[in-house]
């Protein structure tokens, strides 16, 4: 409540929230702003106008012009908002849940559980994030391309369900598959930070008097963990999570840049920028292929960071009571 109010009062976070709201409107109203072409088989596949590799500047037909391969930039930018929200939010959601779970168990039980989970976490942390994500993405794409059923497919289906609301009973749509592999790879190597912070928070609140109080009235471990410790420890995670949304979208864009992101032609800003990659030396002429999706992604990430930054100031107990935010 008060947090939201403070966010709205702070000019930077207000800007962030306004931008995000606009994006949300764009995402929700995508079929209205950029109507799905009649014979489209998947609304996320950007309609194209021919196959020419040379991008074409904005025109009446293509408000923002077309990329190489003649994908409509406007359509991609609009529908890309949906993709960005989905990617950012779902990855953040899952990594946060996993991180919170592992961090909580580790902090709450301590002892060998802690030792084990933390060593496990450290192993994952020993990988440079981007490299690990790149490697895993390429491996996963291979595995999924095989089309066999196994545990990994199960995971992909969970992510597919969260991301696209796809019925887990159905086969994974090959168009979405690549998005899923990138997401899974990021998820795999993205939860550790949260886990560590969470562990620290749990350790801190575990020592709190209200936790002892709950113990004294006879509350069980689970009750203490879920009713008392988690709600209090999880709040600072919000800051990290909100900033993570932006950075995951960036990471995914980096994967797209390296050719491991979404299926070609999929409405994804990162991929649209990677279309621009090879036109950069002549950007004076082809500015629109980098400017529109580029601005879209930068503003999106920026907005989350603005909100996260303000949120940090608001939630940071060290800054509290300073009388200013």
């Amino acid at each position, binding site marked *: 409540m008060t947090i939201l109010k403070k966010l709205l009062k702070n000019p930077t976070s207000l800007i962030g929230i306004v931008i995000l709201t606009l994006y949300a409107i764009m995402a929700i109203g995508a079929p209205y702003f950029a109507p799905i072409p009649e014979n489209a088989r998947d609304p996320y596949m950007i309609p194209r106008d021919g196959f020419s590799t040379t991008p074409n500047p904005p025109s009446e037909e293509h408000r923002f012009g077309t990329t190489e391969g003649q994908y409509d930039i406007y359509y991609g930018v609009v529908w890309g908002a949906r993709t960005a929200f989905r990617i950012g939010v779902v990855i953040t959601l899952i990594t946060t849940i996993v991180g919170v779970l592992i961090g909580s168990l580790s902090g709450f039980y301590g002892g060998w559980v802690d030792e084990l989970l933390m060593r496990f976490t450290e192993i994952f942390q020993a990988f440079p994030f981007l490299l690990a994500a790149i490697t895993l993405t390429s491996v996963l794409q291979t595995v999924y391309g095989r089309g066999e059923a196994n545990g990994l497919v199960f995971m992909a289906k969970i992510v597919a369900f969260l991301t696209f609301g796809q019925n887990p009973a159905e086969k994974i749509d090959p168009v979405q598959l690549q998005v899923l592999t990138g997401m899974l790879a990021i998820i795999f190597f993205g939860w550790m930070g949260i886990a560590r912070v969470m562990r620290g928070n749990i350790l801190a609140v575990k020592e709190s*008097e209200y936790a002892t109080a709950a113990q*004294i*009235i*006879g509350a069980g471990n689970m009750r203490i963990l879920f009713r008392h410790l988690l709600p209090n420890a999880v709040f600072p995670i919000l800051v990290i999570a909100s900033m993570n949304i932006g950075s995951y979208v960036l990471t995914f864009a980096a994967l797209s840049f390296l050719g491991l992101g979404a299926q070609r032609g999929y409405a994804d800003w990162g991929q649209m920028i990677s279309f621009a990659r090879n036109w950069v030396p002549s950007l004076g002429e082809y500015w629109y292929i980098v400017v529109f999706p580029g601005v879209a992604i930068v503003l999106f990430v920026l907005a989350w960071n603005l909100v996260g930054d303000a949120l940090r100031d608001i939630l940071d107990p060290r800054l509290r009571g300073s009388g200013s935010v």
Partner: protein
Amino acid sequence: MSALVRVENLKKYFPIRKGLLRREVGSVHAVDGVSFEIKKGETLGLVGESGCGKSTTGRTFLRVYEPTDGKMMYDGVDLASLNAVEMRKMRRKLQMIFQDPYASLNPRMKVLDIVGESLIVHKLATGKEVQARVEELLTLVGLNPAFANRYPHEFSGGQRQRIGIARALSLQPEFIICDEPISALDVSVQAQVINLLEDLQEEFGLTYLFIAHDLSMVRHISDRVAVMYLGGIVELADKDDLYEEPLHPYSQALLSAVPIPDPVAEEGRRRVLLKGDVPSPINPPSGCRFHTRCPIAETICVEKRPEQREVKANHFVSCHLVDAEEVVA
């Protein structure tokens, strides 16, 4: 009246782990052989300097910490021997009020949930009944029952402490450990809480273990007082007995150090000033724990740990140098 609570030679050491294998290399002797009794309906005050083990004593008794050694009898049952399920049942009778009214209430729970949680945990009430009971409790501690739906941060310190008291009372306990319930409160508010505690004791026949720094307040509220120093009780007696005639050199120093809010009284007072600080409980001094600061220490004090002796009727002292006969005379 028989003793409701009897603690015998209670010890609580916190292990210190270090090194590669997290081996135990030593321990904090937080509570090191504490014995006392509390009769039903009585208030025992527990005073001592910071870090001397007061809270640990209370918490160990409630099995927040597992005792290292000793007996903790409550109504004839040794709490130390109970298993988790039995202990949970027992908790209905034993409660605690905490020092910090800001830290002891979960900031993300409503008063209703904080106070009513115990009812739900012990399946004593459901739904509407909880609400009704909580409102009743709030009224009892002097809060507006309409506050049930507010969050702790909307209350002042005194009010919060009342919420804490309501929580402790929700299970209709017999014995409450008050761990410095007023030391975080403003002077003007402290009296409100003390008065409330006294009223409740009268109304429900509660038994208190009242832990505090503030010796004046302890004198006010307690029937008997125990003075702790570095993990052990050095003196335990009826309050007037103790305050008027402290026998242990530490008690004497402690009492003389407490300022009296009266310049006239202060003028004539002589203080026994102790040297140095309280030693670390990690490697407590040999023999009498107090010998390093004791103005009258002798060699025996370094060598042997004094027993707790009843030097006068109901007046227990742990000191080699307090002579029973002398005292009586």
